[in-house]
């Protein structure tokens, strides 16, 4: 891009990224200390904290958050490492790899709703074994989902996080020379799993540390998943805070802000604890790595992880398959494994609502992702300028860490802090506000997806183009952007699916004036109207899959289509 003043652009974008983060943080921090001008509170005090610590619910919620937020990432990491060690380089594993991106693309609320349909006492799992095995004629009185220990929430989190970690790990395989190491190790007579445990996983960990941190922060702070499938009374801390923030008694906001600050501290403590445990674990296993044993007992841990990981994947697919079944079911009484009568009526009846929700969802996703794409390209171009100019190539650019902050901060609290700003700007409930908040979460993913291919682009093509004809802007679009099409399409698909999945940003910025498939599906998940909820969740899952598929399908055919269109047009013009 023939950019001038790259330094200024870097500075302005940095400011634009920092500004909402600072406002969100300040907007949480001040109310936590009783300073909240909208309510006429101008005196700093510790009352919100005293109120918070006097709440029994706070401790119960905190305990649940810690359990789900630590167990889920541990399981997700264990399963994904096991699956990778087991399947890497095996032919059938490519098929599993191909399935990863659709699962990644599907909004977590849709998966949670599918799990609800699968695991609840009247869900498909119990139906499958009833009445012939269990003898149940009606749903049992068990608590299988939304259980008080958060087990169903943990399952949902693992389903969401395991594919993500696997995806990230697969991308790093080349850089740690996995293939070569495995060849050398196997020639020395090592078992496959032992080799992974002793050689590859220790190399892998530092590269995927940040994605793991993202997963941990997500598990500790997730709201929509926890609303659908998490425990209630007490619920996890994030959900409890959401209820306090939304309490008609506005002074609850102060205590909720203190709670949001403590949730941020919880993230920091858990991350620090995680790193210390990792340090201890690697110290303890260091000697064992070089003891020369070719196979070990711990291999069975990985073997078990494979089994559980596959089971988790299967779970995810059945859960997703249940969404369209429910939306097309007319009669589906309890012990039947499938509906006895099918119908389009559910969809027909819900059509006006679904169309409105779909339009809202797609409009927001489209505008946000387009903006995120343009901003990412400008950011990467200024970064490229910087790299080209400086002699150190491995310098970390300010964008590279700044971009992670919105993903690592808990949405709850932070977004309510921003909401106050939106009210001041008179933007609350506006489509622009929704897009702006979505952008904070879409931009990081688009930027990170685009970063590798964009910076790896062979700049000589563009230079040659500019030597052949000097039209820098036109050449930038016609040569560089056109050649980066596959990466741009993939980044768009990822941004699009991230936007569709957003729950809290839509809810808070839209103030209920704009409902999307996600907000409505989450709101109605508990309603028991499975047919309608199933339809919404199905659409919610459908669009990301569709966009992902298009992103794979269009780029390789683009040029062929362009030629065909050119031929057609010239034929028409010749005829007329």
């Amino acid at each position, binding site marked *: 891009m023939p950019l001038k003043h790259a330094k200024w652009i870097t500075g302005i974008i940095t400011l634009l990224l920092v500004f909402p983060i600072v406002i969100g943080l300040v907007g949480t921090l001040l109310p936590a200390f009783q300073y909240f001008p909208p309510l006429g509170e101008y005196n700093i005090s510790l009352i919100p904290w005293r109120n918070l610590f006097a709440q029994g619910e706070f401790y119960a919620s905190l305990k649940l958050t810690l359990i789900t937020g630590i167990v889920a990432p541990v399981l997700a990491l264990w399963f994904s490492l096991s699956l990778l060690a087991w399947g890497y380089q095996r032919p059938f594993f490519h098929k599993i790899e191909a399935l990863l991106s659709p699962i990644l693309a599907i909004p977590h609320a849709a998966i949670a709703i599918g799990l609800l349909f699968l695991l609840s006492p009247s869900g498909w799992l119990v139906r499958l074994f009833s009445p012939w095995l269990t003898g149940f004629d009606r749903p049992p009185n068990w608590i299988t989902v939304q259980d008080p220990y958060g087990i169903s929430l943990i399952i949902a989190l693992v389903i969401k996080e395991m594919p993500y970690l696997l995806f990230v790990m697969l991308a790093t395989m080349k850089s740690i020379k996995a293939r070569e190491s495995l060849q050398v190790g196997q020639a020395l007579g090592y078992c496959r799993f032992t080799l992974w445990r002793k050689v590859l996983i220790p190399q892998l960990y530092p590269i995927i540390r940040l994605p793991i941190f993202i997963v941990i922060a997500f598990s500790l702070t997730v709201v929509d998943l926890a609303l659908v499938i998490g425990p209630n009374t007490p619920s996890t801390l994030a959900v409890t805070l959401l209820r306090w923030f939304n309490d008609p008694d506005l002074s609850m906001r102060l205590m909720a802000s203190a709670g949001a600050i403590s949730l941020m501290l919880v993230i920091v403590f858990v991350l620090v604890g995680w790193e210390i445990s990792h340090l201890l674990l690697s110290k303890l296993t260091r000697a064992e790595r070089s003891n020369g044993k070719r196979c070990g007992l711990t291999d069975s841990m990985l073997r078990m992880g494979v089994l559980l990981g596959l089971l988790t994947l299967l779970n995810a697919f059945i859960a997703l398959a249940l969404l369209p079944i429910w939306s097309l079911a007319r009669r589906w009484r309890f012990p039947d494994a499938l509906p006895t009568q099918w119908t389009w009526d559910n969809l027909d009846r819900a059509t006006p609502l679904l169309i409105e929700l779909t339009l809202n969802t797609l409009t927001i996703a489209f505008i946000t992702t387009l903006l995120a794409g343009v901003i990412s390209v400008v950011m990467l171009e200024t970064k490229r300028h910087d790299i080209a*100019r400086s*002699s150190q190539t491995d310098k970390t650019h300010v964008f590279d860490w700044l971009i992670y902050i919105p993903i690592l901060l808990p949405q709850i609290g932070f977004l309510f802090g921003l909401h106050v700003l939106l009210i001041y700007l008179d933007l609350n409930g506006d489509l622009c506000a929704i897009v702006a908040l979505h952008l904070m979460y879409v931009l990081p993913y688009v930027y990170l997806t685009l970063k590798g291919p964009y910076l790896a682009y*062979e700049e*000589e*093509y563009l*230079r*040659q*183009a*500019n*030597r*052949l*004809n*000097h039209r820098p802007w036109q050449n930038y679009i016609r*040569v560089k952007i*056109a*050649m980066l*099409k596959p990466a741009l399409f993939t980044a768009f698909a990822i941004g699009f699916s991230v936007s569709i999945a957003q729950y809290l940003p839509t809810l808070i910025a839209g103030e209920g004036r704009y409902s999307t498939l996600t907000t409505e599906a989450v709101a109605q998940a508990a309603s028991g109207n499975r047919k309608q909820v199933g339809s919404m969740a199905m659409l919610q899952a459908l669009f990301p899959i569709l966009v992902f598929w298009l992103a794979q399908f269009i780029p390789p055919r*683009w*040029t062929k289509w362009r*030629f065909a269109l050119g031929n057609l047009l010239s034929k028409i013009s010749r005829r007329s």
Partner: protein
Amino acid sequence: MLSVNAFTLSSKNKILIKDLSFKIDNGQVLSIMGPSGIGKSSLLHFLSGSLSPNLLTSGEAFLNNETLHTKSIQERKVGLLQQMPLLFPHMSIIENLLFAIPTDINKLERIAMAESALKKLDIPDKASALPKELSGGQQARVALLRTLLARPDYLLLDEPFSKLDPALRRDVRAFVLNEIRQANIPALLVTHDSEDAKAMEGKCLELGIVK
């Protein structure tokens, strides 16, 4: 005529090329040989105006007695041919050629020029093929014609034959020399291969290590 006077190139801690001067007449090819890392490519970058800021140069370059080294890249009208043909993979062969033809020529004539270039290459049927459907030798020839269609004032060749099969090289070299003579512009060839230099039927300078 392209001439270079007292060209000196140095990196941070050592001098790579010292006081190099030469002249190239129109339609002639001057070959420059030398081991890798000696600064041959940097000389080309100096002449094309895309030198990396980490390198220091002094000296002057003139094209037909006009100073060249003070001009910006876009004012230079330079043609550069490298190891990679750098044909745009998402454009057909004829689109690649049309890309280079100046826009002040009218549309029909531009198409006629591109088509006559294809005829010269003996691949008139490949007009709407993609670059990857052509052989390496054909790609190299298309790349040369594309560069010349932009009507450069001088041509720089950075080991354009090194990626080709030995059997193909002879044909491509002859083709390149013939085209340069027809275009009647000065050309500078940088190479490892003394066969390249011989085939260009011009003078040859050998660069050595500066002590």
